[in-house]
Every structure is written in C-alpha cells, then in structure tokens.
C-alpha cells in the first residue's frame, strides 16, 4: 500500500513538474509569471484527443499535441509577450491570465463544455506484482518514461549544449548577453517552445490516464503550477522538479494515509506556506541580497 502511494505520488509529481517547467524557464529569464503556460496543458490534451479520434494513432496524436502546442507557445511569445516586454511585468502577468481564460473558452466553444471520453488506454497492460503488492498501471509507466526522457533532455540541453550555455547566461544577465552577440529573442523563444511542449505532454498523459478531457482541466494544474514554481525557488528548473515531487508525494501520502480536513488540492498550498515560512526564497532559490 505504501509503495503504491509512493509510485502514485511520483506519477502525480511528474505531471506537475512537466506543467510547471515552462513557467520556470520563462521566469528564469524574463522575470514574468506566465500563467498561460498552463493553458498549454488543456490545449495539448484536446489536440491529441482530436487527432486520436480522427486517426486512432496514439503516438501520432501525442506528437501532434506536443508539437502544435509548442508552436502555439512560439506564437504567444512573438505576438503577446514580445510587444509587452518594455512594459512593467504586471502587464505581462495580466495578459497571460487573460490568455489562459481565453484559451479555456476557446476550447469550450470548439469542443463543447462537456467531458469528452478519451479512450486511448490499454497500450501497455496493467500488471499486478503480487510479491510487493503493487499494481503497475500501463499509463503510469508511460508517464514516468516520458517524464524521465523529457527531463533528461532538458538537463542535457541546459547544461551540455551551446544553446543551454546561452540560456544560462541570459538568465543571469539578459542585457550583457545581448551585448556579447547573442540573439536573446531566440533564447526566449526556445523557452516558450519547450515550456508549452512540456505542459502539453503533461496534459495529454493526464487525459490518457484518466480517459477524459474537458475545457477547464487546466485550472487545478495552473494553481499547482504556481505553488510548484514558487516552492522550487522561482526560475530554478531543478527546484521545480524537486518541489513538484514533494507536492505530488505529499498529496498522495497524506491524502491516502492520514486524511486531510481540506480538499486534497489545497494541500499543495499548505505545503507551500509551511516551506516558505522556513525558506522564503524557495527550496533552491537564491536569497535576495539586500
């Protein structure tokens, strides 16, 4: 039972991590909170749902959901955020909240307000491991493998590639990086491409796991995303993954064992408050020099 909850928590944490990483990358460079990153979660799930309904090909629908949503991310950067860059960050924040709400309503208009069944499961069978009393769901395996692959990809990209070096320089000092000859617009575009793609992957996998999609499915992940990126120390990718796992595990373990007097989704924020009391800069955030 304990093992079951732990694995479950890691699966939940993986989804949170993928949803939040884009917002973390964007914050790391632009110091703006991009709420609309969570809109990619539902958008990706819907694109995958439509492609799957039309073709019945799960791999194709996954790829289509991720790639098309990532391209939408590029468009969002180019046409929404780039023109707002010279305004105070609050303007970008409000614009991103507006985009998030618009996206939900757009999905509602296109696909209807009802829950749509997304029957794409059964790719991998569920296995019951009697010896350790653990049921391994096929969808979990997919979530864990995809998350591990995407995180490894991001890690290698940021730490062992030329564009990753440019990313780190840009996050430390945007202006000087420009003066050194780096087109920082491309670095920023990469953030949105990756961030929206990752969030789409999370949304698609959740759609497959629970076998349905609905227009407001991105609501709770959006709130959680905020808790996760603040908890991780704003702008720190590793901290984001760590925070996502902590919240995922806490939700399943506390929810499954002790029970909690508030809804399970409130737990993320209780944890957020408790940890921020202890470390105001977040888990891996740097303390602001005064």
């Amino acid at each position, binding site marked *: 039972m304990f093992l079951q909850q732990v694995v479950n928590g890691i699966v939940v944490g993986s989804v949170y991590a993928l949803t939040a990483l884009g917002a973390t990358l964007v914050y790391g460079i632009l110091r703006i909170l991009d709420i609309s990153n969570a809109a990619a979660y539902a958008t990706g799930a819907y694109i995958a749902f439509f492609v799957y309904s039309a073709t019945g090909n799960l791999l194709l629908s996954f790829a289509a959901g991720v790639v098309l949503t990532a391209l939408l991310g590029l468009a969002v950067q180019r046409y929404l955020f780039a023109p707002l860059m010279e305004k105070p960050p609050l303007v970008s924040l409000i614009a991103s909240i507006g985009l998030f709400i618009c996206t939900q309503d757009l999905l509602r208009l296109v696909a209807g307000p009802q829950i749509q069944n997304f029957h794409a499961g059964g790719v991998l069978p569920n296995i019951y491991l009697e010896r350790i009393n653990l049921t391994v769901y096929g969808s979990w395996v997919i979530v864990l493998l995809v998350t591990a692959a995407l995180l490894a990809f991001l890690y290698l990209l940021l730490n062992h590639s*030329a564009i990753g*070096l*440019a990313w*780190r*320089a840009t996050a*430390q*000092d945007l*202006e*000087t*990086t*420009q*003066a*050194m*000859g*780096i*087109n*920082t617009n491309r670095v920023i575009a990469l953030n949105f491409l990756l961030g929206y793609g990752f969030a789409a992957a999370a949304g698609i996998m959740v759609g497959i796991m629970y076998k349905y999609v609905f227009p407001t499915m991105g609501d709770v992940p959006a709130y959680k995303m905020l808790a996760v990126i603040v908890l991780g120390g704003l702008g720190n990718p590793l901290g984001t993954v760590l925070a996502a796992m902590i919240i995922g595990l806490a939700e399943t373990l506390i929810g499954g064992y002790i029970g909690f007097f508030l809804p399970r989704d409130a737990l993320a924020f209780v944890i957020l408050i408790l940890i921020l009391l202890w470390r105001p800069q977040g888990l891996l955030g740097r303390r602001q020099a005064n």
Partner: protein
Amino acid sequence: MLRVENLAVSYGRSQVLFDVSLAVEKGEFVTVIGANGAGKTTLMKAIMGLLRPFQGRIVFRGEDITARPPWYRAELGIGYVPEGRRVFPDLTVEENLRIGAWRRAASFKRSCERIFTIFPRLAERRHQLSKTLSGGEQQMLAIARALVLEPELLLVDEVSMGLMPLLVNRSFKVLRELNREGVTVLLVEQNARLALRAAHRGYVLETGRIVLSGPAAELSANEMVKKAYLGG
C-alpha cells in the same frame, strides 16, 4: 570607424543625453570623461544598442547601425566591457569567454589561448565559477570576454570602478597595450587623470552634453578640466 551624430537618449521623461556627437578613428584610443551621472554609461549603452536613442545616428564603418540590435553590432566587431564588469557569476571563466566569442565560435580555441597568454591568471582559473574571482580578476575577465570577439572597436565603461589603485593602473596598462596592438578603444571614465594619460583624444561630457573636446594633452592642460576633473 565610429561616428555618433546628434545622439539624444531619455529614460521615460528625463532626458540623459542631448545632441551628443563624437568620432573615433581606426587605431585611436579615445576617452570620454565626465562625473557620475553625466550620461557616460547611457552613451555606451546607446552605442552598443542596449538603449534606443530618440534622435541621432550611430554609424560604424560606414554602416548606419542606429536601429540594429546589440547582437548585430557585436557581429560587426564592437566589443563591450560593461560598467561594473558584469561577468556571468554562475558561469566558469571559460564559459564566460565562450559567450564573449559567440559570434567567433569557429576561432574560439585560438583566441582563447591567445587571451590566456595575456591574462595568465584567467588560465589558472579557467574552470572556476567567475563569482569566485577577485574584483581585479573579474575586470580582466570582462576585458578578455570582449577580446575573444576579436573586436575592431572596444567599448570600455569605467575600467577603474571599484578597483584598488594598483589594479586600476594595471587595467589601464592592459588597455594601452591592446591599443598599441591595433585595437581601437573608446573608454568612458570617471578617473580623468589616468584616462587622459592613456588616450590620444578626449571628450568632456557634462550633464548629457559634450562641452569640450581635443587631444588628451590639451585637455589635461585646460584650466576648466584641471579644476573640475583633475583636482585643481
């Protein structure tokens, strides 16, 4: 090589530069001296493309670059040593240089080795995070980072700031040597005495306007400059 014509820059409603014109010829060492807040850093940022002027032109080697982004200017060969050094604290010395050489990546290995012969201290600290370097070493790194671009023109914003006198002298020596080897230098500097000693020509910037210009020796002998910038 560089011509700045009638440049005017403002931050919001407060204007910082008024009708600034200056020129730097190939091989020259030119300095702009001025007090704190005279607009020296603003001038450098505008030349590098980090600030947009609302009036005037910037021409580099015959090309009007006023509307061009900073990375394009770096590609053309303008190296930049920012005020306060601004090395990337969480990158190693070598990674800092790699960023500086972004537009000359093909020749990075060669230029990097050349830099390390000029600054052997940096070679020793090659794999150290640059935030662990001393102030003087960081200043050397900031200059080295601009040099790996193999620039035609080196813009230097306050080489003396926050350094102890011994290191200030050494920094000026490095700039003079580089200039002797053919790098064109435009230095804005608060320390007028050292700047005028190092440069061929100078401009005096006062509250956003060029009020005086001429050969460095002439400026050093000028009564107004002596009084205001050389301590009587």
